[in-house]
């Protein structure tokens, strides 16, 4: 069974803290994605990666960075967390050249920044 896991389901941090969100997939997928989900706005793409050490900006990269040192792991970093970054964060992966770019999602991390 395919699986995407995220390090935490719930996370509470203080303004100004550095925050790491981890995502691991066991499907040997080349592509990995980070989204944030907010009510009424749907899913917005923050960053994505096509390969190890490769990254590209999505639609809302400001205030975020990413790291992909191994194929199975994709980390989202909030260098200095702000209250505006309180949100649900979803990680996804897909197979390069796979069926119609279908993405598989993790359970999400609900981040609250106080």
């Amino acid at each position: 069974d395919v699986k995407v896991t995220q390090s935490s389901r719930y996370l509470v941090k203080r303004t100004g803290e550095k925050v790491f969100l981890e995502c691991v997939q066991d499907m040997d997928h080349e592509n990995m994605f980070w989204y944030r989900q907010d009510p009424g706005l749907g899913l917005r793409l923050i960053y994505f990666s096509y390969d190890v050490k490769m990254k590209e900006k999505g639609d809302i990269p400001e205030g975020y960075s990413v790291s992909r040192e191994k194929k199975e792991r994709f980390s989202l970093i909030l260098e200095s967390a702000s209250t505006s970054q309180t949100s649900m964060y979803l990680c996804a992966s897909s197979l390069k050249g796979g069926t119609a770019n279908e993405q598989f999602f993790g359970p999400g991390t609900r981040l609250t920044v106080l």
Partner: protein
Amino acid sequence: AQSVTQLDSQVPVFEEAPVELRCNYSSSVSVYLFWYVQYPNQGLQLLLKYLSGSTLVESINGFEAEFNKSQTSFHLRKPSVHISDTAEYFCAVSRLNFGNEKLTFGTGTRLTIIP
């Protein structure tokens, strides 16, 4: 670039009644189309997808969607809903034949089933 519009942010429906969740898209090239479902406190799961061929696609739990190219729509329907269908539903598109392609999502429709 592609875009997806889900006009209904919330849809309340009585149990065993039919439902239609609307999705319209915009694209200058041919697309693949998806419906994802998000149950409470979970990630997104693929419900169904249109790639090519028959314009009517079905899921294992009774949902169906019809691709209408002339109206650029991919509406999701179910003839009789159940309490367990309570969830948020997202329509998404991607361009054809690009192995590293992103998905573009709509803003979601929250389906609430009334007993």
